[in-house]
């Protein structure tokens, strides 16, 4: 999976998703997109722009505000041989679809001994900033990781935004793609041709010997900033891993890194309790049969709902400096403290409302 196998061409994260869907719709007439606002002038953050015009209103269409039933109908259409992509402006609204996704989509293949697979793609956007508040900021990837029968992607690079979408569309199972709003305008190399990001294969974004930073979704950007800060300011070499695929999870890559560093810091864009960070740490302790003890730590949302007001919201999220600080404490140990300066996160600071 070389990021540069397409030469120098770059796209935004949103543009990469749009291109993946358009190319797959071109290739496979059974692929269609349904969801609130997918054919409106905004085009679902730009990711569905032009699809209705190009492929017609029966392949890219708006739906009533009926998430539960729309999910069920997408499942029905999938059973009938089509490949639906169902969008949700916020992952928070996915809670209305849980029965269909968990009780049906995730079980159908198994329950009917392979006779009723559900090739369904569900896209859930995670909001942040500008007062998204408690009900427009939640990331529920761990809810789905918990359930056998659903695959979960959380790309952080535009390259994988495209690759995950293509792989998800082609897969014969329900696949949830978690897309963080702060990533949509991020630019990166994206090959024009079609390619798949494999399930269950993590990406090592930076190598280092002192500590392993595993970060999820938007936190990959913050962890990468932290790794730079650690290297430049205190000479700590952090290895940064983006799991990309959360279910299945590539524990081999993570364990290999931990074998080398002996320290694991997992950072999530969600709560830590019973979450993806808990799962990764637990699997490391189960699987890692190394020669020395491993130090582990997790960072995530504060254990509260997300507050709306900016000064509290700032403290709610992990960020580069809080990651650096935690990593420093683990590597230098002995109660040594370092309070690194806050690193600017352009994609967060530049984001303005109204929504």
């Amino acid at each position, binding site marked *: 999976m070389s990021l540069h196998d397409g030469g120098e061409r770059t796209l935004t994260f949103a543009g990469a998703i749009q291109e993946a869907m358009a190319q797959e719709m071109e290739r496979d007439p059974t692929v269609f997109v349904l969801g*609130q*606002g997918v054919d*409106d*002038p*905004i085009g679902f953050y730009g990711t569905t722009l032009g699809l209705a015009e190009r492929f017609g209103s029966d392949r890219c269409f*708006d*739906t*009533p*505000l*009926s*998430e*539960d*039933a729309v999910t069920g109908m997408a499942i029905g259409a999938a059973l009938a041989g089509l490949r639906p992509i169902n969008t949700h402006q916020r992952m*928070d*609204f996915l809670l*209305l679809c849980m029965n269909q996704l968990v009780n049906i989509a995730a079980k159908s293949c198994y329950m009917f001994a392979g006779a009723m697979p559900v090739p369904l793609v569900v896209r859930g956007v995670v909001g942040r900033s*500008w*007062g*998204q*508040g*408690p*009900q*427009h900021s939640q990331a529920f990837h761990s809810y789905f990781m918990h359930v056998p029968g659903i695959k979960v992607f959380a790309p952080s690079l535009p390259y994988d935004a495209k690759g995950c979408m293509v792989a998800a569309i082609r897969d014969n199972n329900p696949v949830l793609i978690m897309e963080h709003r702060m990533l949509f305008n991020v630019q990166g190399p994206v090959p024009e041709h079609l390619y798949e990001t494999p399930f269950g294969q993590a990406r090592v974004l930076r190598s280092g010997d002192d500590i392993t930073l595993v970060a999820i979704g938007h936190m990959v950007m913050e962890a990468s900033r932290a790794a730079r800060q650690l290297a430049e300011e205190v000479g700590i070499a952090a290895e940064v891993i983006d799991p990309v695929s959360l279910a299945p999870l590539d524990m081999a890559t993570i364990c290999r890194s931990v074998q080398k560093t002996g320290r694991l810091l997992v950072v999530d864009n969600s709560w830590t309790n019973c979450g993806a960070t808990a799962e990764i740490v637990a699997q490391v302790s189960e699987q890692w049969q190394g020669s020395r003890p491993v130090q582990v730590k997790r960072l995530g949302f*504060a*254990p*509260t*709902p997300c*507050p*709306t*007001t*900016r*000064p*509290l919201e700032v*403290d*709610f999220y992990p960020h580069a400096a809080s990651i650096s600080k935690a990593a420093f404490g683990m590597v230098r140990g002995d109660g040594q403290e370092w309070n690194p300066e806050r690193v600017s996160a352009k994609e967060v600071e530049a984001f*303005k*409302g*109204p*929504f």
Partner: protein
Amino acid sequence: MEQTTDSALCERLYRSLYRIRRVEEEVARLYPTDKIKSPVHLSIGQEAPSVAVCDLLEPEDVVFGTYRGHALYLAKGGDLPAMVAELYGKVDGCARGKGGSMHLIDMQVHMMGTTAIVATHIPHAVGYAWALQRQGKPQRVICFLGDGSTEEGVFSESLNFAALKRVPILFVCENNGYAIHSHISARSAQSDIVQRISGYGIPSARVEDGDIFRMREAARTALAAVRDPQGGPYFLEILTCRLKEHVGPKDDWHMGYRSRADIQALLANDPVDQLAARLQPESRQQIETAVEQEIERAFQYAEESPFPEQEELFQDVFA
């Protein structure tokens, strides 16, 4: 409009409408300063349903509304400085800044906290009304909802329960024809919502012309039915129009998903202007001056209020 409408009523309605309109115009004017770091779903253009219905309510009556809640909050008598401070994310806000514009609340006037997940509040209102009835309490529950929310399963499920148990509740559907950028005709084969729900066994009425007095009369009939000890639920659909973008302070006619012509009839009936024209110039002047002063004080209050302290992040997770 009837000629007989008395001037005290006109003044009262005008004061409430003008106040909401001006508060939101101030929000829109200030928005580019980034002092309000919160999504705002403005009610500009659709203040009348809240004003008409709330004019008839007893202080003890309970209202449930949506994230587009500024008009309802103010019409029900919610505290203005606390609302503005909430939009600013300040500690003197009605939810100490933790909620923002989408989560207004004022329990003093029985304005329940609003949520941002469409239609979610509808069963809460039904359950609340059912519980009040069971406890023999006289106050009534009014549940405001948007046209989009009628497409959610929980809407049908709640109506069915309300009809079954004869729950005394007034549903007020503010049908502005849009859910974000989607016209109701793109979301339902039947745009007349009263038609759509006619089979539930819930009496209903529809006000189509944007006339605030007709809204009020329809609400009076509806409330009488809901207050009747032998009564039950009632569904009132009011056609109205949002003039601003779905969320935010701007106009969005240029986007092309709707045109002014589509809502010409409703626009021609903007009750703020209509009522203004019916008032004596002096009383109009008096109302407007008082409202302007009140608004200035409210924004000043919000400006001066501090942000919550860091430890507030961890407060109120549990009761």
